[in-house]
C-alpha cells in the first residue's frame, strides 16, 4: 500500500518549492540568526531534487539558490557561511569517496589520509615550514599560490592513492577495509612524528599560519569567499562524478563492484581499474584538503583521525552509496547534524544546566555524541536501508529499445560479422 502511494507520487509541485525558498529566504533575511530558516534554505535543495519539473529548471533554480540567494541573505553572517562551506567541504569529500566505495565497491577506511596529503602539501609550502628541509629561504609562498596548489594537492593525493593502492588493492573485501584502515593510521602516525630526523610536518605542533587564498590582490580569508571556492570545487566534482559514472571506466568500476571474477573475465583489468578508482577518489580529497588547510589556517594530525574517515563513510552509506544526489544529501545531513544540530542541542542543555534544572557531566555533552550517532546510523542503515536514503538508480538497458533502434536491423556486434562471413561463404 505504501509502495503504491510512493509510485503514484510524481514529485513535489514546482510552486511548493518556490514558495518554500521564498518563505525561508525572507525569514532568514528578517530574523537574523535563525538556525531553522537557514536549514530551511539548505533543505530547499533536497526539495528541489524531488520537484516535478525538468532537469534544466531544477538546475537553474538550484544555482540561483546556491549562488545568489544564500550569499545574499546569509552572506553577512560569518557563522552561516562557515557552516555552509563546511557542508560543502564534506560534500566534496563524500563525492570523492563515493567513487571508491559507491562505484568501485572498495571499502576504504583510510580515506582521510589523502585529505591529509592535500592539506599538508599546501600547508608545508605556503608557510615557512618548507624552509626546514629546502635550502634557500624561498618560503612562505603568498596566497596567490593557493590556486596552483589546488592542482598540486590533486596530483600529490593521486600519487598517494596510487602508491597506497598498489600494495593494498591486491586484497579485497573486508580485508581491504582493514588494510586501508591500517594505512590511514600509519599516515597519521607518520605525519605526527615527522618532525625528526628532518622536520617536515612539524609533528604534533601542527603548521600555522597557512595563508588565505588571494586573487588579484584580494585576500579571500572569510567564509564568504570560501563558500564560493567550495561551491566551484563541488560543481567540478559533481560534474566529474556524473561523467565518470557513465563512462567506460565508470561502468568497469560498477562491474567490479558487482562481481570481480565476472568483470575480470570480461577483460577488465582489475588492478588498473581499481587503481584508477583509488587515484580519482584520492585526488578529489587532495583538492579539498588544500581548501581545508587554507580555511583553517592551522592543521595538525588530529584533524585526520579515523573518526573523519568513518564520518565520511557514514555520509556515503547513509545517502546511498553510488548515488550522487544521495551522497550529497548524506554529507549535508551528517555535517549539519555535527556542526549545527548537536551543538544547538548542547547549548540548549547548557542553558538548562546554568539555570540549574539538570546537572550534566561534561562527558555527556551532546557535541561529543559523534561516535554514538555514527554508530547508530551505520547499524540502522545496514539493517533497514542498505541502499541509503536516495538509492542509486540502476541503469536498465531496455532490450526493446535496443531492438527497435536503427542499428539493430541486422544482428548486433560480433554476430553481424558472423552472418556476413557465412553469407559470403554461401555465395
Amino acid at each position: 500500500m505504501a509502495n503504491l502511494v510512493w509510485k503514484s507520487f510524481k514529485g513535489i509541485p514546482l510552486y511548493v518549492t518556490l514558495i518554500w525558498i521564498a518563505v525561508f529566504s525572507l525569514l532568514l533575511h528578517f530574523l537574523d540568526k535563525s538556525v531553522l530558516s537557514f536549514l530551511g534554505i539548505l533543505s530547499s535543495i533536497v526539495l528541489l531534487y524531488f520537484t516535478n519539473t525538468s532537469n534544466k529548471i531544477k538546475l537553474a533554480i538550484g544555482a540561483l539558490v546556491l549562488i545568489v540567494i544564500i550569499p545574499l541573505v546569509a552572506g553577512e553572517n560569518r557563522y552561516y557561511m562557515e557552516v555552509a562551506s563546511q557542508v560543502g567541504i564534506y560534500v566534496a569529500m563524500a563525492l570523492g569517496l563515493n567513487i571508491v566505495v559507491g562505484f568501485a565497491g572498495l571499502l576504504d577506511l583510510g580515506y582521510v589520509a589523502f585529505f591529509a596529503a592535500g592539506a599538508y602539501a599546501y600547508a608545508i609550502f605556503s608557510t615557512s615550514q618548507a624552509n626546514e628541509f629546502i635550502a634557500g629561504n624561498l618560503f612562505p609562498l603568498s596566497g596567490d599560490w593557493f590556486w596552483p596548489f589546488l592542482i598540486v594537492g590533486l596530483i600529490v593525493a593521486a600519487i598517494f592513492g596510487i602508491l597506497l593502492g598498489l600494495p593494498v588493492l591486491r586484497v579485497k573485501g573486508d580485508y581491504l577495509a582493514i588494510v586501508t584502515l591500517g594505512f590511514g593510521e600509519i599516515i597519521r602516525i607518520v605525519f605526527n612524528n615527522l618532525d625528526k630526523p628532518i622536520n617536515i610536518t612539524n609533528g604534533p605542533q601542527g603548521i600555522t599560519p597557512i595563508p588565505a587564498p588571494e586573487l588579484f590582490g584580494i585576500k579571500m580569508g572569510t567564509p564568504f569567499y570560501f563558500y564560493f571556492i567550495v561551491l566551484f570545487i563541488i560543481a567540478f566534482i559533481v560534474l566529474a562524478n556524473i561523467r565518470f559514472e557513465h563512462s567506460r571506466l565508470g561502468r568497469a568500476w560498477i562491474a567490479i563492484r558487482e562481481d570481480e571474477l565476472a568483470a575480470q573475465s570480461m577483460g577488465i583489468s582489475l588492478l588498473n581499474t581499481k587503481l584508477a578508482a583509488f587515484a580519482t577518489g584520492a585526488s578529489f580529497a587532495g583538492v579539498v584538503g588544500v581548501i581545508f588547510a587554507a580555511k583553517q589556517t592551522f592543521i595538525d594530525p588530529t584533524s585526520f583521525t579515523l573518526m573523519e574517515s568513518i564520518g565520511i563513510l557514514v555520509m556515503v552509506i547513509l545517502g546511498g552509496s553510488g548515488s550522487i544526489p544521495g551522497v550529497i544529501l548524506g554529507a549535508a545531513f551528517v555535517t549539519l547534524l555535527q556542526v549545527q544540530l548537536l551543538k544547538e542541542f548542547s547549548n540548549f542543555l547548557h542553558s538548562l544546566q546554568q539555570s540549574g534544572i539538570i546537572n550534566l557531566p561534561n562527558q555527556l555533552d551532546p557535541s561529543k555524541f559523534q561516535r554514538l550517532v555514527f554508530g547508530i546510523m551505520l547499524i540502522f542503515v545496514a539493517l533497514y536501508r542498505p541502499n541509503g536514503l536516495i538509492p542509486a538508480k540502476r541503469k536498465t538497458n531496455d532490450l526493446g529499445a535496443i531492438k527497435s533502434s536503427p542499428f539493430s536491423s541486422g544482428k548486433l556486434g560480433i554476430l553481424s560479422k558472423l552472418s556476413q562471413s557465412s553469407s559470403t561463404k554461401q555465395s
Partner: protein
Amino acid sequence: MLLSILPQVLVDGLTLGFMYAVVALGYTMVYGILEFINFAHGEIFMVGAFVGTEVLLITDAIGALEGMNPYVALFMTLIITMILTGALGVGIERLAYRPLRGAPRLVPLISAIGVSFLLQDVVRFTEAIARNEFYLNTPVLFSGTVSVFGIATIPIKGLVVIILAIVLMIALTLFIGKTKWGIAMRAVALDPSTASLMTINVDKVIMLTFLIGSSLGGATGVLFAQNYGTIDPYIGFILGMKAFTAAVLGGIGNLRGAMVGGVLLGMLESLAGAYMGPLTNQAFGAEYKDVFAFSILILVLLFKPEGLFGEAVKEKV
C-alpha cells in the same frame, strides 16, 4: 647495553603476545564460521576491561576486596566479566549481524563498525554518569615480581596473564576438539549447509561461537586492566587491530594459528619498540611501533594471505 635488555623485552613481549592471542581467537572463530570480520570484537575486549574494573571497584567499595585472596578476587571478576561480555556478544550477533546474513559482504561489516563506535560511546557515557570520568584505574590485585633465571624480572600480574591465557587456550582447544558442541562448530565452519542437514542447529552454533569468543575477549580485558592499570573506552580499537593482525598472521580461521600469531606479534612489537630507536639513531623510535604492527598485517596480507598455518583458498565461481 642493547643485548642486556633483551630478556626483559622478550618477557614483556610474551605478556603482550598472550593477550593478543586470546583476543585473536575471538576474531578467528567468528571468521572461521561466518567468514566475517567482527569489527566490534576489540570493543568487547574493552567492555570486558571496564566490567572487570567495575566489579573490582564495587567489591572494594563495599570493603570486601580488602580481606579477599587476590586469586579468588580475580577468579570471581573473570567469571562475572565472561558471562556479561559473552551475553553482550550474543546480543550483538542477534541484533546487528543475524538479520544481515546473506546480505552483500560489506553490509555486515558496516554494521559491525557501527556497533564498535556505539559501544565506545555507551561505555564512555556510562562511566561519565557513574563516575564523572571515563579513565579508570583498576585496583591492582597482584604486586611483586618474579625473577626469571636472574636475567629478567616478570611481574606477578604478567605471569598471571600468561598462565591464564594458556589455561583459556587449552580449555578452548579441548572444547573444540573433544565435545559434541565443538565438533558441531567445526562442522559448521567446514560447510554450514551440510552441517544443518546433519541436524546441527547452525544458528545455535553461531551463537555459541559468539558467546565463547566474546567471553574470551572480555576475560582478556580483565587481564589487560590488571596488567596496565589504566583503561579508557578507546583501548579496544588498537588492541583489536593488533589481535586481528595476529589472527591473519597465524592464518585466519585457524585456532592454533591465532595463538602462535598473537605471541609472535607481541614479541615482534616489543622488540620493535625497544630496538627501533637505538638502531636508527632515534630517528624512528617507539612511537612507530603501531606502524610496525600494521605493516606486518599489510605484508602478510600481500605475500602470504593464508597466514602461517592457514590453507590457501581458491576462489570458486
